[in-house]
């Protein structure tokens, strides 16, 4: 359960037996395909989720950058993002384990909606914890979860965002651990979660690697993925880690700035890999945005899906090992990339994924002749934010926003 010095199981004692049970289930069902678990998982990902997703040659970006740009189209997965790969895997595993109930946390609502979909599909009762502030900002996602039959429970403590929702879900799990599985939303948390979520997400790079071989008779020179908690990142990198010729770039949210306000306990970015320090959060040792004392800071990104103070321990390890390069772009660049992809390729990306394209824009000359970008999700969920954030800035390629001033 360790990745170098990262990882581990830093959780309340009450959860340790559940984690042991989960580790056992992970090893048997996921790693050894006991009872055909992985076969069923792959079949459901295909029929319910819509896999394989395409790897698309992006013609206009390729022309713009003078290299071949390929997009792994996770935006086409059911629910609109890579999140379903993990949610479906875990809910199915919970069923194999005989659990009768699912809990999950959600920030902006993407993991919550994916889990609610998977739970409805597999007929499992589901309760999603969500910060009160996030609930107020992401009402359409709350409504989607409710439509899928999930409970959505507001978390009112603290600032009411993702960090608090994770803590609250852990509390629920600690209370109901005997019949409940906690579907964590990223490659974070105590072992076996980081490894298990990576394995569920690695279908991304498994497909992409094969598709690149078909399309180009080779491997890409670089793979770029945005990194918040890191589940799409690890999913996009996993099968390329052994290919030494392939550069792997994890693009974090540089937010407003990479500086940190220790006094206010606020980091105006979510760049845990680039600016964070080793510590223990939510069950694992990893890179964390924290103040000198070790208190967790409030992170920031224009993309709420990247807005988390920690990052997956394996990714932290791969960065330390220099196998993965941690980079970042700021809010302005991400927003500009959002508009660029929408206009030139006819794909409205999630603001998360827009970070990867912003990095491509800024550094395409260093990335080789063939670049694979993980388009982790679609941007429909971000339209309100894009209006608000575009209004604040002077982005010359953005369409005239006058008509949309103040939102829909």
């Amino acid at each position, binding site marked *: 359960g360790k990745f170098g010095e990262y990882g581990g199981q830093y959780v309340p*004692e009450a959860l340790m037996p559940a984690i042991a049970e989960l580790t056992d289930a992970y090893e048997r069902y996921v790693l050894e395909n006991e009872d055909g678990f992985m076969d069923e998982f792959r079949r459901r990902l295909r029929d319910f989720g819509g896999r394989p997703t395409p790897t698309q040659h992006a013609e206009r970006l390729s022309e713009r950058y003078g290299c071949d740009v390929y997009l792994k189209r996770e935006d086409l997965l059911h629910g609109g993002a890579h999140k379903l790969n993990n949610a479906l895997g875990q809910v199915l595993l919970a069923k194999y384990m005989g659990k009768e109930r699912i809990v999950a946390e959600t920030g902006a609502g993407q993991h919550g909606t994916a889990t609610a979909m998977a739970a409805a599909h597999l007929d499992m009762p589901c309760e999603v914890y969500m910060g009160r502030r996030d609930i107020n900002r992401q009402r359409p996602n709350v409504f989607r979860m409710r439509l899928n039959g999930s409970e959505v429970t507001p978390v009112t403590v603290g600032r009411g965002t993702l960090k608090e929702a994770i803590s609250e879900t852990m509390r629920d799990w600690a209370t109901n651990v005997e019949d409940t599985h906690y579907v964590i939303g990223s490659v974070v948390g105590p072992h076996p979660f980081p490894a298990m979520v990576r394995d569920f997400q690695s279908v991304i790079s498994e497909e992409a690697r094969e598709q690149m071989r078909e399309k180009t008779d080779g491997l890409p020179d670089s793979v770029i993925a945005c990194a918040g908690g890191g589940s799409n990142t690890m999913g996009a990198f996993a099968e390329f880690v052994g290919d030494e010729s392939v550069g792997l770039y994890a693009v974090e949210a540089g937010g407003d700035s990479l500086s940190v306000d220790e006094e206010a306990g606020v980091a105006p970015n979510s760049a845990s890999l680039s600016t964070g320090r080793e510590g223990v959060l939510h069950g694992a040792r990893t890179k964390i945005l924290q103040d000198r004392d*070790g208190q*967790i800071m409030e992170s920031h990104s224009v993309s709420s899906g990247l807005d988390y103070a920690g990052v997956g321990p394996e990714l932290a390890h791969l960065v330390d090992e220099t196998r993965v390069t941690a980079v970042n772009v700021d809010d302005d660049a991400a927003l500009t990339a959002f508009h660029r992809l929408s206009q030139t390729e006819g794909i409205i990306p999630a603001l998360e994924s827009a970070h990867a394209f912003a990095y491509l824009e800024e550094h395409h000359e260093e990335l080789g002749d063939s670049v694979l970008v993980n388009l982790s999700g679609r941007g429909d969920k971000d339209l309100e934010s894009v209006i608000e954030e575009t209004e604040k800035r002077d982005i010359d390629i953005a369409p005239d926003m006058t008509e949309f001033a103040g939102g829909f």
Partner: protein
Amino acid sequence: MANDALEAAFADGPAFVPYLAAGDPDYDSSLEYVEALARGGADVIELGLPFSEPVAEGPTIQDAVVRSLEAGMTPARFFEFVEDLDVDVPLVCMTYYNLIYQYGDEQGPRPFVEKAADVGLSGFVVPDLPAEEADPLREACDEFGLDLVFIVAPTTRGDRLDRMMQRVSGYVYVQARLGVTGARDDVSGQTEQSLDRLEAYDVPKAVGFGIKTGDHAERIVAGGADGIIVGSALVDIVAEGHENGDDAETVAERLESLARELKAGAERGFAQRAPQAERT
């Protein structure tokens, strides 16, 4: 190697172990409150050093943590707090591992433990540090002569229990039911089973999670506990006083009064099990 203050606190009769978050709702009031617990009969006091992500706590203690952090509590202030306290009972620091890990110039638990020893703390309870991850802290505690208390959950059994009992010192914190901290009106039947499982281990067993009244305390001790740990019921008094704007002295009196009730309850319970009063 360990501090013997904690074991000693359990030596003659049942121990009453109250918890408060240091600095809740402010530094000075909190000093008074902790001192009131001592006057009320505390044998050991668990002092919470607030962490921003208290994953093992229920709403009552979460709120206390927020009040304390907002009033400016930090690890450095916490150590001052301990030094400023005028009490004559052993103090245990209850906090989360990241604060211990980050303290001082180097990463790892040693600087924190060294400082804790300096200011006279007797030990630690770290709710997010299971035995499997505890060796570095255990080593530092050994080096500086502090105890490391582990929490035994209703689900802790077999090998895991052994592993934990090999590393524990001072006392074990027996979690009376699944879930997070918080006062309850019921006392779980899981407690008895946990005490049974622990019977073979020679370390004091203090039961916590949900104890609210003298009667609860009595039943728990009558059932075989060597001590009781009470947090949320006491923190509730602090929270209410804070909300109502009561002065610190009044709140301190209420705390002292509940402490007396709980201590008395524990003693009644101890009396009831006279036949096996001798510790095994």
